[in-house]
Every structure is written in C-alpha cells, then in structure tokens.
C-alpha cells in the first residue's frame, strides 16, 4: 500500500517511519501532486495553526478535503484539529470533514503535557502521549468513539476517517497505524 503523510511541519518523519516499519511505502505530501496514487493519508502532530497557514497558502485545502472525504485518512493531535468540523472558540475550520468539535490546547501549556495508557478500539495497554493536546468535546451521532481517558474523548472513527488527540507516532507501538491501514 502507498501511504502519504502530510509533511508541511511537525512530526511527519515519525509517521513515515511507522508506515515503513509496517511494510508499506510511505510518501511525503507537500503539494497537490503528491496525493496522486495514495491509498491512505496521515495528518501528523505539530502546530495546527502553522500547518493550517501553509495548507492555505499552498492551495492544499480543497485537494486534502477531497482526499479525506473519500479515502482513508487519519489525523493525530494537530491532524485531528485539521479534520474537525468545529474548533471551539473559532469561526473557521481547516478541512471540516469530521463531525467533531475540538478544543485546542485543552489541557494547558507544555507543563500539563502527560503520558498515559489505555484502550484504543480493540488495542489494550496502548501508550498515550499527550503534548499540548486538544480535546474532542463532542461528536455527532455518525462518529464512533474508539478511545476515552476517564471522561475525555481521545479517539474517534467515522467511516474512512480516524482521529486521535494523542501521538501514536511518538512511541514504537505501531498497532494503531496497523489497525488504520487494515481498514484502508
């Protein structure tokens, strides 16, 4: 399978490595032409505002939206913000394809970043790394919650779209990538 990773800013190399470790071909996506021939796409962690500006200036919004509307796409942390329909406190969204409401930096500053462990879908003892993480405040009826930490929604799936507020790319555990790509 050929899997693209949006490579404008952030932890894209970690995702590329995870995809390669699972035996797939990984490609950097920096412009519209890089989307051609991809079977799945990952939007990495990083700074969503920075990525959003670069998406806008490079006229990537429509191509990415078209891709995510039809093909398997996973967003992690900042990537989840890019996919979300609603960003709390803001009037604009980025791709707006996933019917969830997210809140940026919901836990606070870097001093409030933390690691945990939990169940994601059918994956048990999954390492959860939260770095200035957003929080999924609400989801529509069509969106399935696949992971929670206490009361907090930290992972969702809606047909071809997957999103989580933690960083599966920051650990050696590639099970979530594998699960996503199995469905791709």
């Amino acid at each position, binding site marked *: 399978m050929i899997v693209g990773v949006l490579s404008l800013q*952030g932890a894209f190399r970690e995702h590329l490595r995870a995809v390669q470790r699972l035996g797939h071909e990984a490609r950097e996506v920096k412009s519209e032409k890089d989307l051609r021939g991809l079977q799945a796409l990952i939007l990495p962690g990083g*700074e969503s505002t920075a990525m959003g500006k*670069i998406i806008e200036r490079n006229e990537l919004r429509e191509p990415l939206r078209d891709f995510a509307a039809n093909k398997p796409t996973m967003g992690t942390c900042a990537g989840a913000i890019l996919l979300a329909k609603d960003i709390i406190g803001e009037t604009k969204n980025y791709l707006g394809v996933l019917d969830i409401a997210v809140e940026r930096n919901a836990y606070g500053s*870097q001093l409030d*970043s933390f690691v945990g462990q939990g169940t994601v879908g059918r994956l048990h003892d999954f390492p959860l790394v939260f770095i200035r993480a957003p929080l999924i405040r609400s989801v529509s009826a069509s969106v399935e919650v696949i992971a929670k930490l206490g009361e907090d929604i930290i992972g969702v799936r809606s047909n071809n779209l997957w999103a989580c507020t933690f960083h599966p790319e*920051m650990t050696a555990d590639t099970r979530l990538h594998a699960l996503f790509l199995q469905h791709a």
Partner: protein
Amino acid sequence: MRTELNRGLAEMLKGGVIMDVVNAEQARIAEAAGACAVMALERVPSDIRRDGGVARMSDPELIIEIKQAVTIPVMAKVRIGHFVEAQILEALRIDFIDESEVLTMADDQFHIDKHKFEIPFVCGARNLGEALRRIGEGAVMIRTKGEAGTGNVVEAVRHMRTMLAEMRRVQLAPDEELMTLAKEFGAPIHLLQEVKRLGKLPVVNFAAGGLATPADAALMMQLGCDGVFVGSGIFKSSNPARRAAAIVEATTHYADKERLAHISRGLGTAMAGLEIARLETTFAERGQ
C-alpha cells in the same frame, strides 16, 4: 517521562519557524504568518547589540501578554546560568525556555541544571561537544548559536558544519576510540555512543543566529537542520508579515528551487547586516 514529553514537544516544532517577538501585536503577526512558536523578549538581538547594557529575562507582564495573544507555544529567554529566571518562567507556565547567549551571562562558569525543571530547555551550541554538554545538563533541543542580531548567516553555517563534521568523526570511530573523543570534545561518553548509534544528535537541532532571508532558512534546512529560529530578521525588515510568511514557506519547501525562487520575490528590504569581524561583542563566545 518529562524528558520524553519535552523532547516530544521539540519534535512537534520540526520543519517550523520560531520567531522573536517583542509584543502581542508582533506575536499575532508571527502566528498569522505560520510560525510554529514565538520567542517572547523585550528587545530583538540587533537592538541588544546596538543599545548595549545588561540584557536580562523579559518582564513577566510582557510574556503573559504574548502568551494570551497566541495559541502556538511561547518560549522565552533566560541568562546562562540564571536558574532563578528559569524558575520564574516555569511559574509563568510558558512552554519552553531558551538558556541564551544573546542575554548577558549570569554565571560565567556553569549552565543551569536543566534536569531540575519540568519545563523544556533549548540551548545554543557551536560544535558537538557544546551540544552534548547542554544535552547532558538536560536540554531537550539544540540550536546553532550563529551570531544573533547580525543578519549574517555565516556563523550558523559554520556551527552546523562543525557539528556535522564532528558527528561524522564519531560515527566512523571504532568503539575503543570513543572515550578519547569524549575527552577531546569535552562531552559525556554515553551521549557520544548515542550519536554513533543514531547518526545524529539525540534531540532536535534547529538553526539560529543571523538568518534573514527565505534562502538562509532553506540553506540551513538543506544542511540538515530540523527547523529554524529567526530573530531580528523578521521585524527589522521592511515588510515583516510578508517576510515571515516567506521564511515559513521556504522552511517547508526547502529543497524545491522553483518554489524558493517564487517565494523570494519582492519581499522588500531585508534587515541591514553586520560583518562578523567588525563586531565588538560576539554572543557565540558566551557560555561554552
């Protein structure tokens, strides 16, 4: 666990541009241009150079104002060795501390014991030994020192090339030679072993000090830096918003010469540069 999380935040900044800002208004311009973080300070390095005097941590009031203006991470500088300034910034709950040679040194022998803090630190380095000493003290991110406030990229290039050459030496050295190299570089052996194993620094390595154009940013990225800091280069130019956006763009598309040609057009005047040999004070010599 803190080290892992703090190194993780540095990883999230990769491929991005961290911009010096002196007020909330500039912070908003930087964020709108696509900065991945801002560095809050009272005077940009070129003004510190011009005005002289002792340069210290910024007024917390200013840092809080900047923190409230943006959602991207906020960094601020402390003087080398001034662990109380660092305690104060930690209490302000900003996201990152730069223990910086751009400010006047508070301790001319010792750096801050950064392991004692929860908050991440970035430090400057001119060579591999310096980088590994700072990592040994707990820095989770390294940047070239370059020569801040000059608009002259030559020192940043020298520092990056020196680190790369020294890392090649470490990689080629047989294991039994590492202790002698550790002595030569003045660096902890376990970190040399890690460099040999990884083929790079164990933390994110950014370019800083003298970058003024999109081409400067792309040059440092092509040399192998993970991202860039731009200090005086943006807000001392004739069109900060436009130049900031262009530098962000160049950092993303650093290997695409057609795009770089397009990005570099019509940006107005860059900051006036300084010849390194004519400087009265070289910041890079501070804190080794």
